[in-house]
């Protein structure tokens, strides 16, 4: 590599070599990074922990969704039947406002002959009803 190298190349190489010497002093120990698998596992733990947290959050969100969906389906079956009111029977709370004085006269039709009290008229005696007619003898008719 050094063959055919210009002066500038040598200068650059010298600069890089100086940088390398300064950095090599502060390089971490090989055994700290390579030998024990335990530190590697502990270093890998944050990532794994992150995945565990993510999985737990996912499971919790799925569970909450299922929890909220369940009552929607089961609500009609579990709830007691509400008292149903017929539409025709229902009256509004403000119904009394429609009751004007004398309104009954407009809503009702007077009965024909209701003024005479026919109900108290004397009736035929019951004994005449259902009795066979008297047949007069022939000689009486003549």
């Amino acid at each position: 590599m050094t063959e055919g190298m210009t002066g500038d190349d040598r200068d650059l190489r010298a600069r890089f070599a100086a940088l390398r010497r300064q950095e090599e002093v502060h390089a971490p120990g090989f055994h700290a990074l390579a030998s024990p698998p335990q530190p590697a596992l502990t270093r890998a733990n944050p990532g794994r922990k992150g995945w565990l947290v993510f999985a737990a959050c996912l499971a919790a969100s799925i569970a909450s969704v299922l929890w909220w969906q369940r009552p929607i389906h089961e609500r009609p079956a579990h709830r007691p039947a509400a008292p149903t009111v017929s539409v025709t029977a229902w009256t509004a709370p403000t119904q009394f406002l429609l009751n004007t004085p004398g309104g009954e006269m407009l809503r009702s039709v007077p009965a024909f002959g209701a003024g005479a009290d026919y109900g108290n008229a004397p009736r035929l005696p019951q004994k005449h009803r259902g009795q066979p007619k008297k047949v007069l003898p022939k000689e009486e008719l003549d």
Partner: protein
Amino acid sequence: MTETVLHEELERLHPASFGWALWCCDRRRDEAEEVLQTTYLKILEGSAVFDGNSSLRTWLFAVIRRTALERRRRRWLRGQIFDRWQASQPSPLPLPDPEASASIADSSRALLLSLAALSVRQRQLLHLVFYQDLSIEEASGVLNISVGTARTHFERGKRQLRKLLAPPRGNPRGNQ
């Protein structure tokens, strides 16, 4: 390759791997540590298997890069879901971690700031070639791109970096 030999090789490459992981994670130290740990777990548990088609370093760097991309994708998705506003905010210059850069000399800080202005691919290629001493062919293998593309990006990035590191006019001594 036996597990013991693999373990020893990983230990030998650990500082370089950390430097590459730091670069793949926009120089966020915590993230780089996690990416590197995940990479080691993948290798030691057998989910990433070295097939011997390339050098172990090239393969290891490719696994680190892929792991960082997966992590970034996950973070982006999380951002899309939980914090769309923040995720939509573009971050044009991934500035170095202030805590990590506190121990870095001014010249290196200027280099980091200049690199932050480059595209991700240019940055990664320059890092792999200059910082990790890989050839452009090896770097293209790590980034899973063709050698021609890698060379183009490397040359453009180098030109841009020189321009950014060049001393301002009227100060021929430079910024060192």
